[in-house]
C-alpha cells in the first residue's frame, strides 16, 4: 500500500469509521484505520486510509451504506494531503 497512492476518508465519528472498516473487510478492500492526520484536522478521531485505485468503488459502497463522508484526501507525501473536491465525492443520504 505504501507504493501506491493512498486516499484518506474522514468520517463524522468513530462509529462511522468502524462501520466503514466493517464494510471494507466484507468487500475485501485493503485499508488502515489511522488517527486523523493533524494536517487535515485537529479532531481526536480516526480515519480510514485505502488505495486510491479503489476510490470509485469506495465512494459507491459508502453511498449505498448511507455513510456520510466528512472529507476525502489524497496523501501526496508522508504528511501532505490534498483534498478531493466535493463535486468528485458521491452525495450521501443526510442523517
Amino acid at each position, binding site marked *: 500500500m505504501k507504493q501506491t497512492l493512498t486516499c484518506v476518508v474522514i468520517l*463524522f*465519528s*468513530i*462509529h*462511522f*469509521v*468502524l*462501520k466503514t472498516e*466493517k464494510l471494507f473487510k466484507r468487500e475485501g478492500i485493503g485499508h488502515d*484505520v*489511522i*488517527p*486523523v492526520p493533524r494536517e487535515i*484536522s*485537529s*479532531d*481526536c*478521531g*480516526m480515519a480510514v486510509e485505502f488505495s486510491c485505485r479503489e476510490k470509485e468503488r469506495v465512494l459507491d459502497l459508502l453511498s449505498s451504506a*448511507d455513510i456520510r463522508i466528512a472529507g476525502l484526501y489524497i496523501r501526496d507525501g508522508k504528511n501532505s494531503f490534498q483534498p478531493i473536491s466535493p463535486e468528485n465525492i458521491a452525495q450521501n443520504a443526510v*442523517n
Partner: protein
Amino acid sequence: MSPTPASIYCDNAATSFPKPREVIDAVSSVLSRVSLSPGRSAHQFSLECSRIIFDTREALAELFNCHDSSRIAFTCNVTEALNVGIFGLLGVKLQPGDHVITTALEHNSVMRPLRYLGKTADIRLSILPVADDGEVMVSELPRLMQDNTRLIVANHVSNVTGAVVDVEAIGRDKGDAVFLVDAAQSAGVFPIDVVKMNIDMLAFTGHKSLLGPSGSGGFYLRQGLSLRPLKMGGTGSNSETEIQPDFMPDLYEAGTPNTLGIAGLGAGVRFVGSTGLTNIREHEQKLCRLFLDGVGQMKEITVFGPAADKERAAVVSLRVKGKSESEVAQSLDRDFNIMVRAGLHCAPAAHRAIGTFADGTVRFSFGLFNTEADVAACLKALEIISKK
C-alpha cells in the same frame, strides 16, 4: 447437620442471575487487557474498545430489526433511557398543555417523569386501563386519543404481573404521536421489531434478559426523530467545536462510556441470539406454567395477573393468606434460600391497577437459568409457609 440448600434465585425481573460465562469473560477481558477510553485516543487500546462498543451496537440493531446501528445510544440503564425520551421530547414534540397516553401497569421510571411533567409543564395524562383478565386494554386507545396527543408510552411487559402489552396494536393506532416502548422486561425474551411495531423509541436495559451487567442499557431512536439530549460534553468527534454533534449516536453519548458494561452487554446479546429468543421464551413460560399450576392448587395463595394459558412473561405476583408479603419473602430467603422480591416493585400504579396497593405482592420471576427443580422447590416452600 444438614447441608444448606443451594440458593435459588427467582428475582430475574430485578436483574438476571447468573450471567453467562461469556458475559463475565467479556467484562474481565476488557478490564484486564485494554484501557477504557474508546473513541478518544488514537491508540490500539482505544480502537479496540471502540470496536467492542460498535459490535454491541450492531448486535442490538440486529436484535431489534433496526437497520442503522447509529440509531442506538447507550445509557446506564433503562430508567435513564426513558428519562431521555420523556424529558427530551419536551420542547421538541411535546409542548406544555399537550396530551400523553400511558398504561395502568407502568413502572415509576415512566410514571414519575410523566407526573413531574404533569405538575411542571401542564402535560395531560390518560391511562389505558387493565381488564379483569390482567391485560391492558389497548382497544381503548382510539377512544383516549386527542388532537394534541403527542406521546404514547407503554411497557411491553409488566414487571409486576408479567402481562404482555400488544405494542404492535398501539403502533398501528398511534397516529402522529411518538410511541415510546419500555422494553425493560421484554428485550431478550419477546421479539421486538421496531419497524413492524412502528416504534419510535425503544428503551432497554442490559442487565435483565439481555444478560449483561448492571450499568448497561440504552435506547433506539428512529431516523428523523430528535430529542433534547440529557447531557452534552466530550464525544471524541467534532472536537474543534464547542457545539454538541447533531448526529447519533454521539449526540446522546457525551462522556466516557461504560465500556465494561457495554462489552458485557454485547456478549449477553450474542448469547441470547445464539440460544434463540423462542427457546428462551418457551423455557421460561414452561417454568411459569408449572409454577402457576402448582400455586393454583394452594387455596391460601392468590395470584394477580394473566392466567397460565395467556401469552405472558415468567413474572408472577402473589399473596399468601394471613401472611404479610415481607414475612413470606423473608421466610423464603432465610428458611429456604429462595430469593424473590416483595413490595411494590417500583410500580405503585400497577399495584393500584390490580388491587394490591399499598402492601404489594411477593414476586417470583424466573429466568433462563432457572430449572423445573427450582420451581418445585418454590412450590414446596410456599406450601410449607402457607400452612404455618
